[in-house]
């Protein structure tokens, strides 16, 4: 675990020691494991509980974190994450506090931190300014669910300037030419949308997801992480066995938050139990 790095820098981690996605994937490959990447919304249900949740996720063995900045109109998200956004906003979260949240996390971990931000929050702050601030806080990557390559020029410039990975989504509907283009623009990893639709828990991983993982593997050397609808340890196992380098899990964790709003202790216990199982499922079995 990279908790070791923390001991050298109590209080704050030196930016040079932050792990890149590259380093993370190499480390995992050596151990014959895939990445387990939990997603939560910063400040849901409130700032301090949310910090405790992050600590719990790290204890469970999270390899990287995806942190959402709460937005009033998250069109690419299902009801679970939308409610999470609204709870965070109700608890007083805003862009500045979300950045403070990242800074706090950086006090105790050096693993990659990706942001999931709807583009209006970036646009309103000013694209350059947003990426600059993100870099200052120790952000590794930024993904905007409503920013396809067509509109991403300014974001890509800022990402390059501040050495942040710009992450793009690829879906089952993404055709070959477009896939090539996205693979060229992206860095860090390719975020594969495993379902037709929005984020949210699903019963099983679709066969088409498995096909798409293989399709991307033929197009690019970039690692593939699968998200949207990955809600059980068996899903994590399925996508990693299918050749993905990692799984991103959001709604399943956030459901445990929603369910236990008045029982924070139980909330953390259940998250620990569920996410530990997911991390265990990242072990690559040689068949």
């Amino acid at each position, binding site marked *: 675990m990279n908790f070791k790095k923390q001991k050298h820098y109590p209080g704050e981690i030196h930016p040079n020691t932050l792990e890149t996605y590259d380093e993370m994937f190499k480390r995992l490959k050596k151990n014959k494991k895939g990445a387990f990447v939990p997603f939560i919304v910063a400040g849901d249900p409130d700032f301090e509980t949310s910090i405790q949740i992050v600590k719990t996720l790290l204890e469970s063995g999270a390899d990287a974190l995806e942190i959402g900045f709460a937005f*009033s109109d998250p069109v690419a998200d299902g009801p679970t994450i939308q409610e999470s956004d609204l709870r965070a906003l109700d608890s007083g979260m805003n862009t500045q506090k979300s950045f403070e949240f990242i800074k706090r996390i950086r006090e105790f971990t050096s693993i990659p931190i990706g942001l999931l931000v709807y583009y209006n929050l970036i646009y309103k702050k000013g694209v350059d300014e947003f990426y600059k601030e993100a870099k200052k806080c120790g952000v590794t990557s930024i993904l905007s669910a409503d920013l396809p390559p067509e509109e991403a020029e300014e974001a890509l410039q800022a990402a390059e300037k501040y050495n942040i990975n710009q992450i793009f*989504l690829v879906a089952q509907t993404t055709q070959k030419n477009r896939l090539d283009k996205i693979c060229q623009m992206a860095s860090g990893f390719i975020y594969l949308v495993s379902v037709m639709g929005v984020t949210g828990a699903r019963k099983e991983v679709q066969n088409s997801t498995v096909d798409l993982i293989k399709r991307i593997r033929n197009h690019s050397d970039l690692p593939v992480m699968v998200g949207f609808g990955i809600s059980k340890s068996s899903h994590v196992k399925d996508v990693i066995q299918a050749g993905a380098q990692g799984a991103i899990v959001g709604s399943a964790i956030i459901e445990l938050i929603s369910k236990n709003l008045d029982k924070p202790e139980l909330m953390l216990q259940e998250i620990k139990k569920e996410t530990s199982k997911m991390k265990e499922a990242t072990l690559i079995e040689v068949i």
Partner: protein
Amino acid sequence: MIESGKFGKYGGIFAPELLIPALEELESAFLKYKDDKKFNQELDYYLKEFAGRPTNLYLAKNLSQKMGCRIYLKREDMLHTGAHKINNTLGQGLLAKYMGKKRLIAETGAGQHGIATAAVGALFGMPTDVYMGMEDVKRQRLNVFRMEISGAKVIPVETGSKTLKDAINQSMRDWMTNVQDTHYLIGSTMGFHPYPTMVKHFQTVIGKETKNQILEKEKKLPDVIIACVGGGSNAIGIFSEFIQDSEVELIGVEGGGHGIDSGNHGATLCAGSEGVLHGSLSYVLQDTDGQICEAHSVSAGLDYPGVGPEHAYLHTKRRARYVNVTDSEALRGFQLLSRYEGIMPALESAHAVAYMEKYAQKPENKGKTIVVNLSGRGDKDMFLAASILGVEV
């Protein structure tokens, strides 16, 4: 995508990746059929025989006399289902049919666009689901029934503010899930490309007719055109044919709600700022971080925190001027037109009427030829108007 969908810097395609292939498919179908003879013959047939086009450009004699101007009303309120919305739903519904789509979805605020979509769904035999905020479902029981009797399923939206913007969010989510066989029939000139361009195209029929009619009646172009602006489809429809005619003043009237200073309004261009909402860069009502604010207007059609990107372009280019009138001024417009002309406007259109009165009262505007786009009729608003006026019905 073939085109960028930009109006100056506004517009664009701020869409989740899942939707891009569907938007590409839609753009290419739209570009293919918009000038296709057979498609247009069929559309013209439905516009005439089903919707009741052309609509009259009516000289409002009593009001003209009272105000000392020549005031014309473009009677979109006479259309089937009660508003200009049917121009667009017929166009997109037919396009969806040509594309082989099996199902329609739509968002609706008060229900006018939902009703127009339900009618087209019934006409073309396509199952239709309409997303409507729970708050609006409660306020507009009658319109829910009108949609349901036409065979549409009305799905109440319980998330967020439970109004139009959440109905749009939910429609987008449905489309992302069912994109292969479903057409999302957006009701205004908003959203990601190609919607703003496509909806405008289907609404330009208003402007084309108006131009021919005014030239025939007055032998000259009007001095000013006044239209209400929510998302902005009726306004862009009538403005479009006159944008090149720089001598024609174009005025868009937004919902001023309780007044700009109250913070409770839908006046996006008058009081909002640049932002990305529902797929395009335009003006939005937002806080300093970019969180979207809730809009307010007595008229549900103007109760939206965004506005079509081409209006943002016309606004910043100063080709059109955007103003706002309050709820109570709009109600006065509603009474004025009913009382003087025997025509009850929709509360949306009443905003345009109310501003027309303000405009005509200015001494420098005496004698001018004014066209007001009467985008919808007031039947749907009678209970609301009565309750505001303190009348029990």
